[in-house]
């Protein structure tokens, strides 16, 4: 895998004003890169700001502070219309709720073709139909489904329609915001496999958002763990599983059940207590091992380093 960055996020902040004096710091200073062709998993508990991160990256929200560079270009900087449109084509999103992400008044054909219509990618109706049929086939649906309405489909089918809609504009980067968490377990693998296959065929880069580690481990190359708007640990997927350092990551890992009775009998769930941290100074994001980053204070940094050396 090449180590060329597709996306660079530096000090990204997204604060929502909810009242005259109250502010929700949904995202509070994120720094990370996403390499070309990889799948970056972003995990954390509900409400920690994962969706907000994704939506800010794709410019659904204006960032309060910080920059997002896509292929070296600043996404949030001032742009004219044509440049913005180029970004819209490069970056796409797959949404969490398959029941809310498709307009109930539109036919599947029009839903999938929306991007092509906006960007003028097709010349005539015949070509539009053909492309829609191709896309339906790509995501494993029937051509005949083009003339139907979303309410006639199951959750997994809808999610695949959502994927087809995103693919219609030939993006290179896709943000998948918990694309499987609303699906039945039996369908989850189907959608994940489809995404993996598409990644191979179309050289896509994914930001895969999830709230538990079990499926992310399977799909991701690198994983970032978020806690209350901050990234607390970032490492290769395997490294994170083997040598989790931050107590929050450990707690997440301890929550994964395995279909192995022996393991389950000895599994101890581990609760994260934020007050256990060293509070002598503001924690910073530091590289503890090669490509293994942890949010820590200087004291904790030394401690983690030692811990990493012993394994």
């Amino acid at each position, binding site marked *: 895998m090449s180590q060329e960055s597709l996306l660079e996020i530096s000090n990204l902040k997204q604060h929502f004003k909810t009242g005259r004096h109250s502010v929700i710091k949904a995202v509070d200073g994120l720094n990370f890169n996403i390499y070309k062709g990889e799948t970056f998993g972003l995990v954390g508990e509900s409400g920690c700001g994962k969706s907000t991160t994704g939506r800010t990256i794709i410019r659904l929200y204006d960032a309060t502070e910080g920059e997002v560079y896509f292929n070296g270009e600043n996404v949030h900087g001032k742009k004219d219309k044509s440049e913005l*449109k180029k970004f819209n084509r490069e*970056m*796409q*999103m797959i949404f969490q709720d398959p029941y809310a992400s498709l*307009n*109930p008044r539109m036919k599947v054909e029009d839903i999938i073709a*929306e991007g092509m219509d906006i960007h003028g990618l097709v010349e005539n109706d015949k070509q539009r139909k053909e492309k829609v049929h191709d896309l339906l086939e790509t995501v494993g649906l029937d051509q005949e489904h083009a003339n139907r309405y979303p309410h006639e489909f199951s959750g997994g089918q809808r999610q695949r329609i959502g994927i087809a*809609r995103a693919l219609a504009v030939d993006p290179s980067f896709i943000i998948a915001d918990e694309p499987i968490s609303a699906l039945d377990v039996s369908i989850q693998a189907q959608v994940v496999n489809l995404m993996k296959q598409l990644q191979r065929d179309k050289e896509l880069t994914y930001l895969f958002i999830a709230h538990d580690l079990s499926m992310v481990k399977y799909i991701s190359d690198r994983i970032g763990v978020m806690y209350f708007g901050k990234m607390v640990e970032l490492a290769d997927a395997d490294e994170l599983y083997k040598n989790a350092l931050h107590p929050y990551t450990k707690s997440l890992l301890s929550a994964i059940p395995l279909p192995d009775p022996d393991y389950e009998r000895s599994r101890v769930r581990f609760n994260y207590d934020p007050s256990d941290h060293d509070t002598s100074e503001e924690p910073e994001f530091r590289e503890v091992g090669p490509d293994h980053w942890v949010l820590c204070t200087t004291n904790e940094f030394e401690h983690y380093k030692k811990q990493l050396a012993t394994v």
Partner: protein
Amino acid sequence: MDNHKPSKDLFVPVEKQEGEAEKLSRPSLSFWQDSFVRLRKNVGAMIGLVVLILLAFMAIFGPYMNQYDAYEQDLQRAKMPPKIPVLENISWLGVDGTLSSIKEAETVEAAREKALARFGGDEETITTNVLTEPSGDQLARVEGIQDVYAAKEIETNFWFGTDSLGRDLWTRAWEGTRISLFIALLAALIDMVIGVAYGGISGYYGGRVDNILQRIIEILVGIPNLVVVILMILILEPGITSIIIALTITGWISMARIVRGQVLKLKNMEFVLASKTLGAPDNRVLRKHLVPNVTGLIVINTMFTIPAAIFLEAFLSFIGLGLPTPIASLGTLINDGFDSLQIYPYIMIFPALIISLIMIAFNILADGLRDAFDPKMRE
């Protein structure tokens, strides 16, 4: 412990049958087709619809069905009771062109005198029936029935009778229905346009704009509706235009609120976000995603606004703030009839029946539409 471990060969993979599972058997129906199918199954709503179509037909063609004009006065034929050919033979309908009156007195003779006097003493056209003979302290009761058409030597029939100025009530009733419906439809249309635009802008742009627009609505709502309407009518020249203005001046508020709420909900739905990430400009989002998803609610709300507007117009006319005298509307007709309700009940009954039918039909139909548009009703 190891004996709990299930052996691998106990598991047989289920055969893949994706191809078949993806098949959809139901015919493909759009939201509107689907709703219409459900509406058609609703008997009440269909009756309401038929009644409304009939009433609308009569409002358009009714006034031309006889030779009389809605404004032509003729005191010679004032207060003629209704007379409808064929139906006149069914006595309990009371459309046989006769007026009746029951008089009481000490003796049968005296009562009969009174009954004759009630109709001007023209004995040829009056029949009298003795209802009760005097006995003990019970008075004699005699019913006098006059064939008014014979008495006035009028050959033609007034289907709904005439009013105190001799105007044909059939013509006036349908003319009034037409004017009332026109006022209500126009008022509802204006309410809809203002309400949708106001609520849409307020909801879609949100923030400061929303804040200001909502404060304005709150102020308007704070003033009692009737006070505003009455003040408006007093300032403006009475007439159809001013009634419409009075009805719309506060009427759009409920529509604005409904649309705003709906847009607020919709604009953060994921399909709208998806459209934005594809680069859709605001007007496309509004046109393709927001408007089609609030249309159902707009239609339902309008269907409820129309009868409310008809009622308010009738109410204003009834308390004397509505249309000026010669113009017929259901409200003014009821007001006219109310003055002589006890002697000539038919003057009020017909417009009252029509207005009741309109109100009931609209409400039933609107109810049916609400059920039909509700996706939870989908089978």
